[in-house]
C-alpha cells in the first residue's frame, strides 16, 4: 500500500512519518507538496506534525487553504483513511474535517515528553489492530494541544464514540494528573462521523522503534495497512459503502 505524507511549508515531522511508513513498516510512501492537487493514488494520507505556515495566526489556520487540502477532503469524503498528527490534527480541526479547536496548553509552555493514551475505539482505520483499552506510551511535543469543544459537541462526540484516544495514567485511568495539556475530558484524539479521519496530538511516528524509546505507536500504521490491504483489495478511490471492510470496520 502507499502512504501520502503531505508536506506543508513548515511541516517538520514529515520525514519521521515517512520513515515510519517506509522504513519501519516497509510500505510505500511518498511526500506530497502542499501545492499539488492530487494525492497520487495513495491509499492513506498522513498530515504530519510541524508548524505549517509558521503556525502564524493560529496553528493549522493557513494550511487548510493549501491546494492539496481539496484533494485530502475529497479523499476523506470517499472514505479514504486520513491521519492528522499533532499539527496535522490542528489542520484537520481548522479545515472543519474534525470538530473542535486547540488552545494553548494549560502550562502555557511547549511540552515534550512521553505520555500514556488509551485506545477508546477500535473501529477506525488507524486502530483496527488495537485492543480496546490498550495503553500506548507515546510522546507529545506541542504548545497548543489543549483540546476544546463546546459541551454539547463533546457530548455528541462521546455518544457517537468519536473519542479515539484519551490521556491516561500508565494503568489506564483518565485522571487530571494524566492530562498533560488540559484537554477537555482528556481527549488526545478523535475521529469524524464516518470514522475514517483520525486526528491525535501525540506522535505515533516517533514511537515506532524501541531504540528511540517506544514502539507503541507502530500499531496505528499497522492498523491502517491491515485496513487497506486486509481483504487483498487496495482501497484506492472506492466509496465507503463499497469497501470490503465497510461492514466490519466502518460500522457505527
Amino acid at each position: 500500500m502507499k502512504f501520502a505524507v503531505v508536506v506543508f511549508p513548515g511541516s517538520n515531522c514529515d520525514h519521521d512519518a515517512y520513515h515510519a511508513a517506509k522504513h519501519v513498516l516497509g510500505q510505500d510512501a511518498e511526500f506530497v507538496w502542499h501545492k499539488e492537487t492530487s494525492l497520487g493514488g495513495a491509499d492513506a494520507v498522513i498530515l504530519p506534525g510541524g508548524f505549517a505556515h509558521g503556525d502564524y495566526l493560529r496553528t493549522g489556520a493557513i494550511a487548510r487553504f493549501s491546494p492539496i487540502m481539496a484533494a485530502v477532503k475529497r479523499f476523506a469524503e470517499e472514505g479514504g483513511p486520513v491521519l492528522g498528527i499533532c499539527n496535522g490534527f490542528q489542520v484537520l480541526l481548522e479545515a472543519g474535517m474534525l470538530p473542535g479547536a486547540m488552545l494553548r496548553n494549560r502550562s502555557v509552555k511547549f511540552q515534550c515528553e512521553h505520555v500514556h493514551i488509551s485506545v477508546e475505539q477500535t473501529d477506525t482505520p488507524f486502530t483496527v489492530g488495537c485492543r480496546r483499552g490498550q495503553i500506548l506510551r507515546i510522546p507529545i511535543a506541542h504548545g497548543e494541544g489543549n483540546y476544546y469543544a463546546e459541551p454539547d459537541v463533546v457530548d455528541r462526540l462521546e455518544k457517537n464514540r468519536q473519542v479515539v484516544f484519551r490521556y491516561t495514567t500508565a494503568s489506564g485511568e483518565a485522571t487530571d494528573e494524566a492530562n498533560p495539556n488540559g484537554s477537555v475530558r482528556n481527549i488526545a484524539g478523535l475521529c469524524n462521523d464516518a470514522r475514517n479521519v483520525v486526528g491525535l496530538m501525540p506522535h505515533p511516528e516517533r514511537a515506532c522503534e524501541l531504540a528511540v524509546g517506544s514502539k507503541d505507536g507502530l500499531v496505528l500504521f499497522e492498523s491502517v495497512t491491515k485496513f487497506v490491504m486486509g481483504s487483498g483489495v487496495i482501497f484506492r478511490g472506492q466509496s465507503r459503502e463499497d469497501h470490503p471492510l465497510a461492514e466490519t470496520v466502518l460500522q457505527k
Partner: protein
Amino acid sequence: MTPDPLAHGLSQEEYQRILEMLGREPTITELGIFSVMWSEHCSYKSSRVHLRTLPTTGTRVLQGPGENAGAVDIGDGFAAVFKIESHNHPSFIEPYQGAATGVGGIIRDIFTMGARPIALLNSLRFGPLEDPLVRRTFAGVVAGIAGYGNSIGIPTVGGEIGFDESYTGNPLVNVFCLGIARADEIIKGTASGAGNPVYYVGAKTGRDGIHGATMASAEFDDTSAEKRPAVQVGDPFMEKLLLEACLEVMKTDALVGIQDMGAAGLTCSTCEMGSRGGAGVEIDVSLVPQRETGMTPYEIMLSESQERMLLVVKRGREAEVERIFDKWDLHAVCIGHVTTDGRMRVKNHGDVVADIPNTALTDEAPVYRRPMAEPAYIAEAQRLDLASLGAPAAPGQVFQRLLASPSIASKRWVYRQYDHMVRTNTLVCPGMGAGVVRVKETTRALALSVDCNARFVYLDPHLGAQLAVAEAARNVACAGGQPIGATNCLNFGNPERPEIMWQFGEAVKGMGAACRALAIPITGGNVSLYNETDGRAVLPTPTIGIVGLIEDAATVAGRAFRTRGDAIVLLGENHDELGGSEYLTVMHGLVRGKPPALDLAREGALQTLLVRGIANGLIRSAHDCAEGGFAVTLAESCFDTGLGAEVDVAAVETAAPAFGDIATLFGESASRVIVSVGAARTAELVALANAHGITATAIGLVGGDRIRISIGGRSVIDTPLAEAERIWSTAIDAHFESRRAIA
C-alpha cells in the same frame, strides 16, 4: 556627513590604517563596513594569535577553522558538521529573541555547509535564580531556544546550565548545532568565477540589528537598555523554508558558494566569500529586498536582519536555482556578480558607495598581541584552609543541599520545553548524560556534550580549560563515543585588561594541550569577549563541545542503572580534592582552592576503556563524576530508574581530618566514572580496567529503594531514593511555581 571613527568603535590608530589602505577618506558606508569587520566579534583581533596555537588537524578532519563550521569524517562517506556559537549580549537585552536568533544563526552555519542539521545543544549560564530578573532572563532564554528549535524541527538533545553571581548582568547563551552531510558534498562559503551572479535570498532587510557585531564587542553599562532596537527578531518559519530550499539547491551542482548573513550581515558575507575565493564581489544595494523605506546603503550593508543567505551561482544556471526557491515561496534576487579584482564594491543605483580590497577587511584586519598579566586574585583564591571553615555539616544534610543546587538539580523544567525527539534519532534524551543521536544513513550514532566548569577555570585557567576538555570528552565516552572532534566557545571579559587576556591565553593553552593529548582536533568555534557588567567580568568560561563516534548505534550507554543486582564499579580514584567544588560554593559560599589534578594520559586511557567496555556490552551504564562528586553521581545513576544502590567506599586521606567524609563523598577529582556491570562480569571489567592502567573498584550493588553509602563500613548517607529524587527533580521548578516568570 563627517565620519566619526570613534563613534564606530574604531581607535585612532585603526582609522589611520584605513586611510592608508584606501589612500583616501572612507565614505560613511565604508567606515561602517570597516567598523563591523574590524570589531572584535568579526575580526578576532585580540584572540587570533592565541587561537592559532590550537590543534586543528587530524585524519578525520574534513574542514577545520575558517569556514562556516567544521567537519569530521564519520565513515561510510558521511561527515558530521558542527559548531558552537555565542549569543550572550543579545540574550541579555532581549532574552527570548536573543536566544532564538542564536539558534537560528548556528543552524544556518550548519546547513550552509550542505549538511542537514539533526541536533542542537546549548550551554547556558545565569545568575542565581533567587533574583527575579534572572528568572525572567532564564525563562526567556529557554523559551527562545524552544521557540526556534521546536518550530524548525531540530531536536535539542542536551546541554548544560550553570549558575553564578557573575553572570547576573551578563548571561551566557552558547548554542551548538550538528548536521550530517555527504563527505564529498560539503559546500564552502566561497565566491569565484568572474561574472557568476550573486544572489540574495530570504527575509527582507530592515534596520534591525544594525551594529549588533559592535555591540557584542563592547561591555554592558547602564545605557545598554537604550540599544534595544539593535536586537534582531527571528522567524523560524522563514529559516525552515531557507533550510529546505538551500539543501535542495545544493543537490544540483549549480552552486559555487553560499554563506549566511549573520553578524555584520551583507558586509561580512560579501567580503568573506570574495576573500576565500580570491575574487571580488560587486553588488548594488538598491537591488536588495527591503522591508523598510528610505534605507541608506550604510544601513543595508550593516543590517543584521535574520534568515538571509548570499549565494554565488554558476552563470547559465540561474533559472534552475530560481525555480527551486520559488517552489518554497522564496524570492531569490540577483544583486551583483563576481569580479576578478579582489575588491568588495558596493553600488547604490549604479553609484559606487564603497570600494575596498577584501583582504583589508579579512586577512589584513588588525591583530593585537594584547598585554597579559596574572591577576592578583589567583594566588589568594587558590589558598584553601578547610580547617578554618569549622566543623562540616553532616554528609546526609550536605547531600540534600547539593541535590537541590540548581547546577546539579534536574533540568527537566528546561528540556521538557525543548522538542528533543523530532527526527526520531534521539537515543539518549537530555538529562541522561551526553545527548546521543543515531545517523540514519549509517549504523552509527554520535554522542554530543558541551561542558565547562568555570569555577575551575577561574581558579586556574590553564588547568581549568584542560578539565573542561576532559569532562566533555569523558561524557561522550560514557555514552560509548570515541571523541573525534571539538568546537569551542570562549566566553571572557574585556581583553583590553591584561588580567582577562591572561585568563584567555592560559585557557587556550590548556585547551590546546588537552586536545592534543586526547587527539581531539578543534575544527572551529567562536570567541565572545567583553562579557562584563560595570567592569565586572563573568567567570572565564571556555565552553567546549565534543562529538563522539559510536560505531554501533545498538550499543549506547546512559547514566542510569539498568538492572537490579548489577555491580557498581568506580573507575578512577577519589582524592582529597575539594578545591573549586560545588560543595564549597553551596555550603560555604566559596570559590576557592586548586582545581583537581588531571593526568591527561590516564584520562585518555579511561576514555578508551569506556568506549571498549560499552562497545562489547560489558559496561551497562556509565556516569561521569562532576559537580557534587561521587555521592551526587551515584544518586544521579539511580534517578529515573526506580533502582536504589548500596555502596561502600574507602576513606580519602585529607589534610583537614574533619573533612574526610566530605572529601570522599563530594570532592571533585577528575577522571572518575561510576559504571554498572552484570555482577558475574565484575572481575572481567576490573581486569580490563587494570589492563588500561585504570583503577577499578567494585563498591556495591544496584537495588533496593534507598541510596546507601558507607565509608569503610560506616554508614554516612542513607536516604530513601524517592526523597532524594524529589529534592533533585523539583528544585528548579520550585523557583517558578506560584510565581510564574513574567515573559
